[in-house]
C-alpha cells in the first residue's frame, strides 16, 4: 500500500496548460469565449457523446487520450457521457458506414435540442481514405447536420481540444 501512495506522490500533478499554439492567438481568445459560453449556457459543463460511425478506430484512440493525465479534458468542463440523451454535443468519427447510417440518425434524434455535431478526423470531415462507396456514406454531413469539423488522420489530442474549443 505504501508503495502505491509513494508512486502517486512522486508522480505528482502532470496536467498541462491548454495547448496554446504560438501562431494562433485567436485560439486562445476562442478558448476564453468557450469557457464563458460553457459557463453561461451549460452551467459550466459541456457533455459530449462520442459516436464511432465507421472509423478505423485511430480517431477513438486519440479521443481517449483527451482523458489521460496530460490533457485531462474534464478540467475545462468537458465530459464524455454514455448516452446521447445526456449530451450537448455529438463527436462523430469515421466515414459513416452504410451499416451505421440508421444508428447514427437515431443517436442524433435521441440527443435533446439544442445540440451540436462535431465531425472529428478526415474520414468524418470528407470521407478520408474511404470516401463514398457501396459501403460508405462518406462525410458525416452527408447523413446529419455538422457544425464543426476537425481534420487530421487522426487528429492529435491537442487538435481535438482546439477543435472543440472552436465550436462556439
Amino acid at each position: 500500500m505504501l508503495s502505491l501512495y509513494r508512486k502517486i506522490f512522486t508522480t505528482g500533478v502532470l496536467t498541462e496548460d491548454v495547448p496554446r499554439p504560438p501562431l494562433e492567438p485567436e485560439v486562445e481568445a476562442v478558448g476564453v469565449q468557450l469557457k464563458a459560453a460553457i459557463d453561461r449556457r451549460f452551467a459550466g459543463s459541456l457533455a459530449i457523446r462520442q459516436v464511432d460511425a465507421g472509423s478505423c478506430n485511430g480517431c477513438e484512440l486519440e479521443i481517449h487520450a483527451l482523458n489521460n493525465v496530460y490533457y485531462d479534458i474534464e478540467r475545462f468542463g468537458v465530459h464524455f457521457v454514455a448516452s446521447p440523451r445526456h449530451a450537448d454535443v455529438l463527436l462523430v468519427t469515421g466515414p459513416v458506414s452504410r451499416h451505421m447510417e440508421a444508428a447514427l440518425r437515431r443517436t442524433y434524434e435521441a440527443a435533446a435540442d439544442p445540440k451540436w455535431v462535431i465531425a472529428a478526423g478526415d474520414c468524418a470531415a470528407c470521407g478520408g481514405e474511404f470516401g463514398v462507396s457501396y459501403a460508405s456514406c462518406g462525410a458525416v454531413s452527408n447523413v446529419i447536420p455538422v457544425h464543426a469539423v476537425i481534420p487530421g488522420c487522426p487528429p492529435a489530442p491537442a487538435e481535438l481540444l482546439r477543435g472543440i474549443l472552436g465550436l462556439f
Partner: protein
Amino acid sequence: MHLAAVLQEQGIVVRPLQPSPLAPAELLEIDAFDWGRAAELAQPVGWRWVAAWAEDEGERLSVSACLEKHGGYTVLRTRVDSGHPALPSQAAYYVAADRPERHMQDLFGIRFSGHPDGRRWTRHQAWGEGSFPLRKAYPLAGTPPEQTPPDSGYPFLKAQGHGVYEIPVGPVHAGIIEPGHFRFQAVGEMVLNLEERLGYVHKGIEKLAEGRTPEALARLAGRVSGDTAVGHAFAACQAMERAAGIEAPARAAFIRGILAERERVANHLWDLGAICNDVGFAFANYQFGRLRELWLRDNLALFGHRLLMDRVVPGGAAVDVDGEGIKRMRASIAFLRRELDELLPILDANSSLEDRLLGAGVLSAEDAAALGALGFVGRASGQRFDVRHDAPYAPYDRFPVKVPLEEQGDVASRFWVRYKEIRVALRLLERLLEELPAGALTVPWQAPPAGAEGLGMVEGWRGEILCFVRFGADGAIGRYYPRDPSTVNWPALEKLIHGNIVPDFPVCNKSVNGSYSGQDL
C-alpha cells in the same frame, strides 16, 4: 507430413503449383467436391485453419483457404462456376472458417453446403440479397437506397426457460469504442449465452483496394484497424514485395521491426490500464495512460506520427532513425522498464485486482486450440504460436524471439502475457537498435506482371496478420484480402464469457480487445 501427402493418401487429387507463386507458402489446387473433405482430413492431424478468400475470375470464382502447421503455410485453392457457385463447407471441421465463409457468401454469392450457420454475416441492409459487391461487375459505388434501413430482424439465437431474459447492447456502445452488437441471454447475473453481431463498420476495404497503386494500398492497409497501422501495412507490403520479387533492404526491415514493436508496446500499455479501469482500479489506468502518452509523443518526435501510420511503404520504410534518435529511444526504453518495475509489485500486491481478474473469462486450452486463437488470447491459454518465432521473417529471422506463455486462460493470464510481451518487446527494440544495419531505406519498386500474387504473414500486436494480394494490369492492385487476428479471436469471446456474470463482461471483452474495423473490413 506435407498436407499434399495427407490428402493424396486419402485419394484426393492434388495439383501442387511449382514453384509456388505464394512462396514461402505452398499452393495446392484441388477439385471443388474435395473442398470439405480436405478440411476434414487436415483438422485431426494438427493443421490450423488460418484464412480464406475468393477471387472473381470471370466465368469462375476461385476460393483459397490457408492452413498452417509448425510454421509451414499451405494454401488450398479450387474453382467454382460463377453462375451457381457452391462449395462444401470447411466450417463443419474448423470453427475459424464459420464467419469467413459467411463473409464470402455475402460478398461473392458463394453457397457453402453443409455450413452449420447459413445466416448472413457481413451483409446487413446496404446491398440487396442477390448482389455481391466483390464481384468485378459490381460497381464500387453500388446502388445504395436513399437511406440504409437498420439491420432489424436478424435471427438471433433464443434461450427459453424460467427467469431467462435477454440484454441487447449496441451497435452504439456507452463508451468511446467501436460499434457492434452483443446479445446476451442471462439468468440472474449469469450469462447463458452471448452472441456477437458485427459488420457495422464494413467500409468495403477489399473493394476499395482494387485499382490502387502499391503506395495507396499501403495507406489503406494502415487504416484497416487504426491501432494496427504498422502491422497491416507491414503485412500488405510483405505480400506485395513477395509478388513483385523484391526485398526491402536490411535497414528498412529493422526499422519495420522497431515500428512494429513500438506499436505492440503502445497498445499493451493502453489495454493493461483499461483492464484495471474496468474493475475500478483507476490508479493503474492513469499510470499506464501516462506511460502510453509519453510513448506516443516519442513516436511523434522520432517518426513524425503518434500512431505510426504511413511509415511502412512498399519496398522499405518511409522513416529513419539517426544517432540522436537512437539515444532518445534507448533512454525512453530504460525509463519505461524502470516504471514497469515499480508498477509490477503494486499490481501484484493488489488483492482486489486479483479477485476480479483471476478465474474470470476462462478460455480453456482445448477451446483455444479448436478456435485457432491467436496472439495474447491464444498464448494466455497455452497456445505458443507466434509468427516471429515459428515462421520468422525479416528482421526477426536474425534473433530468437521469446514467447511468453500462461496456462490459465483467464483475464489475469491475458493481462500477464501482455505485461511480459512489453518486456520482451523492449528487449527486442534494444537489439534492433544495437544491430541496426547501415544502408538504403527502400529499393525501387518494380511493377509485377498482371496476375502476380503474394502472401504476407506478420505477428501484429494482436497476433498473426495474414494478407493476400494479387496484382492486376499496369501494376495496380487486383485483389486485397487482409485477415486481422480479431476475425479468429472474436468467437473466443463468445466462448469465454459462458457462466460469467454480466458485470464482468466489460473486463472480459477488454482483455481480448478484438478490432471491429479489422474484422468488418
